[in-house]
């Protein structure tokens, strides 16, 4: 089914995609002429496949549940923000806050993302084939962020229990983020994520892992004199 945003309103297109007849066999949709509109495919909850042909604006595929969404273009701020499950695959670049606060599902970005990729992520798996901007994985709580390129300043600042896997250079680490030794379990996680994004598994050896030093979890008694 083809949904043309030049002919139908964004609200109508989203309504159609949000209220799928579960008994029907219509499972594949295409959205054409996105023209940078905001909130395209936000709030989908069924197991459908949607291909967006072009560039989108803010919050594309936000709050996604179950749906598999492919964007043949770039996406604006907050792609797949607060996603619960399903897959979002961006064939171009993403703007800031990609996958922000998302609880689950998989976000694959073929290009680069700008700042704050995976900010406050709560269980999502994000795989970026390019580089990420500054403050990525800021306060990341759970889930995995895989970066095949480089990371900007303050990677993983104030990170909790999320993992960051990175192949390229880290410009600087944020507070309480440190390199970790990768064990078998971590390697298996990375292997399955690379597989999801069709990246050669042999690349595993080129990745480093970062996580929380857990020094901000509790008050440091040495600082008591500050009060």
């Amino acid at each position, binding site marked *: 089914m083809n949904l043309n945003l030049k002919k139908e309103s964004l609200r109508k297109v989203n309504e159609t995609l949000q209220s799928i007849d579960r008994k029907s066999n219509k499972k594949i949709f295409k959205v054409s002429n996105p*023209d*940078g*509109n*905001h909130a395209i495919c936000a709030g989908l909850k069924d197991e459908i496949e949607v291909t967006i042909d*072009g*560039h*989108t*604006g*803010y919050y594309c595929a936000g709050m996604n549940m179950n749906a598999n969404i492919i964007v043949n*273009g*770039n996406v*604006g*701020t907050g792609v797949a923000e607060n996603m619960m499950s399903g897959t979002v695959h961006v064939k*171009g*670049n993403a*703007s*800031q806050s990609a996958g922000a606060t998302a609880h689950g599902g998989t976000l694959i970005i073929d290009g680069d993302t*700008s*700042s704050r990729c995976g900010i406050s992520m709560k269980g999502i798996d994000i795989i970026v084939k390019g580089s990420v*901007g*500054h403050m990525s994985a800021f306060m990341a709580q759970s889930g995995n962020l895989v970066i095949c390129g480089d990371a900007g300043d303050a990677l993983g600042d104030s990170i909790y229990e999320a993992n960051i896997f990175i192949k390229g250079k880290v410009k600087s680490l944020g507070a309480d983020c440190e390199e970790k030794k990768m064990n078998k379990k971590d390697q298996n996680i990375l292997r399955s994520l690379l597989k999801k994004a069709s990246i050669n598994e042999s690349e595993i050896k080129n990745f480093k892992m970062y996580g929380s030093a857990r020094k901000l979890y509790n008050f440091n008694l040495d600082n008591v004199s500050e009060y």
Partner: protein
Amino acid sequence: MCGIVGIYLKNKKYNSQLGKFLTGMMNSMATRGPDSAGFAIYSSEKKKKYKYSVCSNTDQVKEISKKLSKQVKDIKVKSISDHLIIETVMKPKKFIEILKNHDELSLVGYGSCIEIFKQVGNPKDVVKNFSLEKFSGSHAIGHTRMATESAITTDGSHPYSTGEDECLVHNGSLSNHNNLRRSLQKKGIEIKSMNDTEVAAGYISNGLSDKKSLKETLLDGLKDLDGFYTFISGTKNGMAIVRDEIACKPAVVAETKDYVAIASEFQAMAHLPNVNSAKIFEPEPGKVYSWGK
């Protein structure tokens, strides 16, 4: 919030459509800034002539023209909505002094190729009032304002111009503008309003008058201007964009062999020719990008 847009044409075949392109860009950014709007258009240079863009608070254009022509020789006045474009050979220093005696007029910009228009109201109405669609030129910059730290007036609207053929639009806010305003005023830079962006425009004018390039001046600004900003700055040779190091104010650039377009959001350029095959990127924080002759 605020919306900012800019377009620089590399291919002259589009010059006659500059106004049309900018109209679409400003209309789509109306949602980011519904309070007021303004734009600067650069067209080909008129040798030894100056164009003064003036906002008038009366509609008695004929009387104003008559009065001015007594004081200024060889004058041509074109009126569009509440603005006058006054063309004369008279140099800025002298002409600006004369303008000061006309309480009903306020200068919004001047130079050999710039024309600036700004007005309170929804951007969609503002661009209609000034018939932006009909303008042609080589590059243009626009702004749609959601007012934060100063009043919704024409004085508080962008673009700001504090020097010949210069203009600046801004999305964001500056925190050290009061101090900077004082130090720039001491250096003789005229800053009329209490608006933060006008101070940044004055800062750029000061840098350019010290024979620094626009790029150098904007790089210095990263140290001296404290706050959040994405700036698009225009001169008669072209335009430049810079974002502060935190880069929380958005910007996206689309470049083709025919033009470079900048906007707060991609949707502002979705109507431009062949934009889907353009090179599209977000300017990196703390880096100056410029295009021009």
